[in-house]
């Protein structure tokens, strides 16, 4: 099986009882087995959680990004994969640990003791040897399964230790780590045909690291122990010779003397090296040239060159000669080869070591060869391996290792003093009851409630400053939150970025997260593994308090730079941001919104003097003297309202601050208008007390939220918070819930996300990566997995039944394409299950 089939794998797609076996099956493709962690912290809800993104190269090597809960990794035992060990001879596993720690034990040696391993370590592992990696924490690692990299393995074996850790502090090791890291970041954008040059570069780097090691070993070695080192020096020379030869293939006049001169070696010595590999310089040169010609002949991009032109290109001076040599080697004339389907090339590339017909023609065994069978094999292997990667190397672009720019995330929340209103379940919005632009498990709760309590929560839209007069003036709550003068900003931190705005200089928190969230509310007795049910009992408008607009309701829609339209406009200027202010007529039989005016965003200078050319920081007051209002826009359009909350969240389990923009397993910025009055949202509790927050109120939004925002309009919600303890959920669907689940009067809505748990899956830079890597395809895939899980677990359907039902009766829609972690939802009508009570909690009916 090819790992490529599963470019992305996540245990979250599987019901709990199948997770371990699914995980083992995927690990087996990477030649790994696993055991549960002997010690260390349990994973969330005690579930095994694992994510893999993988890409396999045209040579069948695999680059895989792993993120998982604590466990023990072992080499795959014989037979477990149905292959003899010999099948994987030549395979090397390169494991680069990116986060987490544990130990590595060489169980090949009876008395070996565990060695500590840490983030930043690179280990070279031979799948045919015995070893044991215990990971005591959640971890992330890049695993590279290199095929036919036997020469790396030989270096591994000639090294001092069987378990090779590469120092990655400085020098080549650090470059190696950087390369692996950048491959991990770009994995989703690298095709199988683009991997070989990277693979080749990685091998070269590893070889270089290991040569340092073997030189060290050599220096320490006893004088009489010189024989193996002579061999490795010769191999190193041969490698250099091959590399030089590869770069000169096109030179028709190339002679062994030229190479000898270039490499500072004697002609005789070079001859000896090739002889050790059971071939000769001339023979090898010819085979390399023929191979290059063959690749060119199969390349459709070169179809306009004649065969003679191609063979001249690779140093053949006579076309007839070339044709004969080609036919003799490949059993087909160049012309016939060219006519054959080009997929053959890929087949040849994939098959790895050239097959007998294509390999260097082995002359009869020469007894006078300088070494025994083993040594000869080493030389032969080197030649064929080199031949394989040479092509990739020749094509390899010079690639700089990007340096990662890591934002500083201070781990302390703003210093909110709070007075929990005793026995009082009305949560007003003020500078003291909000956290702006981020979630965190360490924000102090503003209110503590018991399961079943009802809480009325006021929320504010962060776009109120688009028209301060209509949406802020005279409203004490809004004035408290938005207060910002030259010397005082009531809520300084806006976003999860650094307080000193050291990245972009936009302002404290950098606007990495924009939503004003009211809360958090601590729910007594809530623990990780429980489920919090949020019932939305009512949604009330927050009318304007300005004398001129008293009692009227307004909202703002920003067609912003993060919208789907931004780089795709018809009219000039091509990169504009436009704010449209709407009035909501809520006292009407058919509540609706109508546009009042719109204006183009102009650079705004905030009270601290920072200029915002685009909408890059929330709550910057727009100076209406700088803008040009167009009244009479959308004159005839009457938009039906769908009041809802874009953000409904419990605190994430991760430490530190989490950007409020991308939705995830803990809910957050789902931006689904179905989270409206009458709906119930179930969220998996990740921290003690659940820490529920709500924000991003919308008067109306369409599926996709195309231009970046909805009608952003301050609203007040009435919520009932019901806690479902894990123990009481028994074996129900909710007991396995590790994603937000929305239950409306007529429908169940499964919210697929491009990355269902992006923080776990994407690692330390998840909050940056998620904006780059999301796709609707992945969100659609996740929505499918969740709909299937729901139908199988909550309705006891078999998988085949669930799949048929999904195709004929479940509607998939695009939730949003603007929140980093893109969303696709699956809507299941309750009418499909006429006998079902609609309740999912045990004992509820």
């Amino acid at each position, binding site marked *: 099986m090819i790992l490529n089939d599963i470019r992305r794998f996540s245990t979250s797609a599987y019901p709990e009882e199948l997770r371990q076996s699914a995980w083992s099956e995927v690990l087996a493709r990477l030649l790994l087995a696993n055991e549960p962690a002997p010690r260390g912290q349990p994973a969330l809800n005690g579930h095994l959680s694992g994510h893999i993104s993988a890409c396999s190269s045209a040579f069948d090597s695999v680059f895989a990004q792993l993120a998982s809960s604590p466990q023990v990794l072992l080499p795959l035992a014989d037979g477990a994969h149905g292959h003899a060990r010999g099948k994987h001879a030549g395979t090397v596993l390169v494991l680069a640990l990116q986060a987490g720690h544990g130990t590595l034990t060489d169980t090949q040696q009876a008395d070996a003791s565990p060695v500590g391993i840490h983030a930043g370590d690179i280990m070279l592992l031979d799948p045919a040897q015995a070893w044991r990696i215990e990971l005591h924490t959640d971890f992330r690692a890049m695993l590279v399964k290199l095929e036919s990299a036997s020469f790396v393995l030989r270096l591994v074996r000639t090294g001092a230790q069987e378990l090779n850790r590469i120092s990655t502090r400085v020098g080549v090791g650090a470059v190696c780590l950087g390369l692996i890291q950048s491959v991990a970041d770009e994995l989703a954008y690298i095709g199988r045909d683009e991997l070989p040059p990277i693979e080749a570069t990685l091998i070269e780097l590893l070889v270089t690291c290991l040569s340092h090691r073997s030189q060290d070993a050599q220096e320490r070695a006893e004088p009489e122990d010189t024989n193996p080192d002579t061999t490795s020096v010769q191999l190193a020379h041969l490698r250099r010779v091959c590399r030089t030869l590869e770069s000169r293939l096109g030179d028709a006049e190339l002679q062994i003397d030229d190479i000898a001169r270039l490499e500072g070696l004697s002609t005789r010595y070079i001859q000896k090296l090739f002889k050790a590999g059971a071939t000769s310089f001339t023979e090898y040169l010819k085979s390399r040239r023929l191979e290059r010609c063959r690749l060119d002949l199969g390349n459709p991009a070169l179809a306009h060159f004649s065969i003679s032109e191609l063979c001249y290109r690779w140093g053949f001076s006579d076309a007839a000669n070339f044709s004969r040599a080609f036919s003799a080697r490949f059993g087909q004339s160049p012309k016939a080869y060219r006519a054959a389907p080009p997929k053959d090339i890929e087949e040849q590339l994939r098959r790895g070591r050239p097959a007998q017909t294509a390999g260097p023609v082995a002359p009869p065994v020469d007894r006078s060869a300088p070494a025994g069978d083993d040594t000869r094999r080493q030389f032969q292997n080197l030649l064929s391996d080199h031949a394989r990667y040479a092509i990739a190397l020749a094509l390899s672009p010079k690639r700089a290792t990007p340096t990662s720019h890591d934002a500083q995330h201070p781990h302390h929340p703003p210093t909110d003093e709070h007075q929990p209103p005793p026995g009082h379940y009305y949560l007003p919005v003020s500078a003291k009851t909000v956290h702006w632009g981020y979630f965190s498990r360490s924000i102090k709760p503003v209110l503590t409630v018991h399961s079943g309590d009802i809480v009325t929560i006021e929320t504010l839209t962060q776009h109120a400053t688009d028209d301060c007069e209509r949406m802020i003036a005279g409203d004490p709550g809004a004035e408290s939150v938005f207060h910002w003068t030259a010397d005082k900003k009531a809520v300084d931190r806006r976003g999860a970025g650094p307080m000193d705005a050291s990245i972009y200089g936009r302002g404290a928190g950098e606007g990495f997260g924009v939503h004003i969230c009211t809360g958090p509310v601590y729910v007594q007795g809530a623990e990780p593994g429980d489920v919090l049910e949020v019932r939305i009992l009512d949604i009330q408008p927050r009318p304007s308090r300005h004398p001129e607009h008293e009692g009227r309701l307004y909202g703002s829609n920003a067609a912003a730079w993060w919208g789907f339209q931004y780089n795709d406009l018809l009219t000039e200027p091509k990169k504009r941001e436009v704010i449209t202010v709407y009035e909501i007529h809520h006292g009407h039989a058919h509540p609706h919104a109508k546009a009042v005016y719109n204006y183009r965003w102009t650079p705004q200078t905030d009270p601290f003097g920072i200029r915002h050319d685009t909408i890059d920081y929330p709550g910057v007051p727009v100076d209406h003297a700088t803008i040009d209002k167009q009244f009479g826009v959308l004159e005839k359009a009457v938009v039906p309202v769908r009041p809802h909350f874009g953000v409904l969240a419990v605190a994430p389990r991760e430490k530190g601050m989490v950007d409020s923009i991308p939705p995830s397993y803990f809910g957050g910025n789902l931006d689904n208008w179905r989270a409206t009055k009458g709906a119930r949202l179930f969220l998996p509790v990740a921290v003690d007390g659940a820490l529920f927050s709500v924000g991003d109120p919308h008067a109306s939004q369409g599926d996709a939220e195309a231009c970046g925002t909805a009608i952003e309009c301050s609203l007040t919600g009435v919520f009932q918070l019901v806690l479902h303890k894990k123990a009481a959920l028994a074996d129900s669907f909710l007991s396995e819930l590790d994603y937000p689940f929305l239950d409306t009067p007529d429908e169940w809505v499964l919210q697929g996300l491009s990355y269902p748990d992006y923080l776990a899956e994407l690692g330390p830079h998840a909050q940056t990566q998620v904006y780059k890597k999301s796709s609707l395809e992945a969100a659609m895939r996740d929505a499918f997995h969740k709909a299937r899980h729901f139908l199988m677990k909550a309705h006891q359907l078999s998988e085949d039944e669930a799949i*048929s039902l999904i195709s004929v009766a479940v509607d998939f829609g695009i939730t949003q394409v603007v929140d980093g972690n893109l969303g696709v939802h699956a809507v299941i009508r309750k009418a499909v299950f006429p006998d079902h009570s609609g309740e999912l909690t045990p004992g509820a009916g």
Partner: protein
Amino acid sequence: MDGHICGPGCTHGVTKENEGEIKEEFHTARRSFLRDAMVMGGSAMSIGALGVSMSPAAFAQSAQPGGGMTRHFYIPAHANTVLWGYFSKSAKPVVEVDSGDYVTIETLTHHANDDAERMVKGDAGAESVFYWDKQKKNVNRRGAGPMDAKVGAGGGEGVHVCTGPVFIKGAEPGDILEVRIIDVVPRPSGNPAYKGKSFGSNAAANWGFHYGDTLTEPKKREVITIYEVDATGERNWARALYNYRWTPQTDPFGIVHPTIDYPGVPVDHKTITKNENVLRNIRIPVRPHFGTMGVAPAEAEFVTSIPPNYTGGNIDNWRIGKGATLYYPVAVKGAMFSVGDPHASQGDSELCGTAIECSLTGTFQLILHKKNSLPGTPLADLQYPLLETQDEWLLHGFSYANYLAELGPKAQSEIYSKSSVDKALRDAYHKMRHFLMTTQGLSEDEAISLMSIAVDFGITQVVDGNWGVHAVVKKSIFPARGT
């Protein structure tokens, strides 16, 4: 019933009573769109014209009225009235109609042979189309591929049994063909044992989004589920009867089909294991519609019926049912309208590859809008299929708006590897913006704001090569022009 096609004066299939009913339907399903078009057009239309537009015949007024009398044709499904798996601009039309004429068209699902007992047997039309023994195969070409393809003639490159084409007199490239779906009824089983019932098949097939991504083994299985639909139309839901796993099937010519790789291969029920009692107590609300409907593209002689395109085709949107109207840009002379791929129900995304594939009969009115009558109306500049339902307008975005033109000579195979939901959304966004700007007279900024707050984007299908995302806008948003 043979291949006889009924015209005016023939009572075959159309009685006086249902003629009346159809007219009645038409009054109630009346669209406001064209009337608005005239309002938009302003000076071009007289008040008098607005008045007449309330009567059915007058809908066709922008076209040649065909002697003042609309006619009603009936096209039965028969080996000589279908094209199987392709559109072709040069196929021989089964009938020529005038703008404004009605046509009742029988369509057959290409999955009928998953349970021939229920869906083919005793049904003369279906038997004629599906007839296939050692010597003879009534409809040999199935797909736009080569006639000597390994899996069978036409290569199964295109699978839908499409009834037609219908030639619309006077239609030329640049015109718009309006197709009103007046009625859709299920096709009752011809087998007396199943009197009063209709059946459909859902195949979780190798081209499905789920394929290879299943929890249980074997990972690469194909599963057929047979559903029952009430043929009288009284019960508005379908239920599952049984399912079975696809086993290699040998067709009458001796070719083995290890997977569902060719349409209309009769499934030998001796080789399969049926699981009864699947999806118990589950009711699938029916949404009868036509998955494939459209006009012939100009780009190639034979065009596979699978990927949808600017000429319509296999859009697979369940909203293309009774009461809906489609507007297609005419690409070839006579438009060459055909319809097939009938579905009893489907969810947005058609995830496993098919819907409840169930033979249906539709009644359509075909109205031609000549190019020179379009300027100033919402149909001016329409280069993609537009769907209008009772309450909504829908635009269909595809990964490639016109894949035949964009992907070049190998388009019909390349489209399968190049599609994405992201691209389809981009196209849906472009089309909706275009629609709002041209038909509602909005500026770009107005259109964009409206799209974010009041337009819903859904995933039509991810299984037809050219993936689809639709954009839905409610007519009630524009009360000034709505009904």
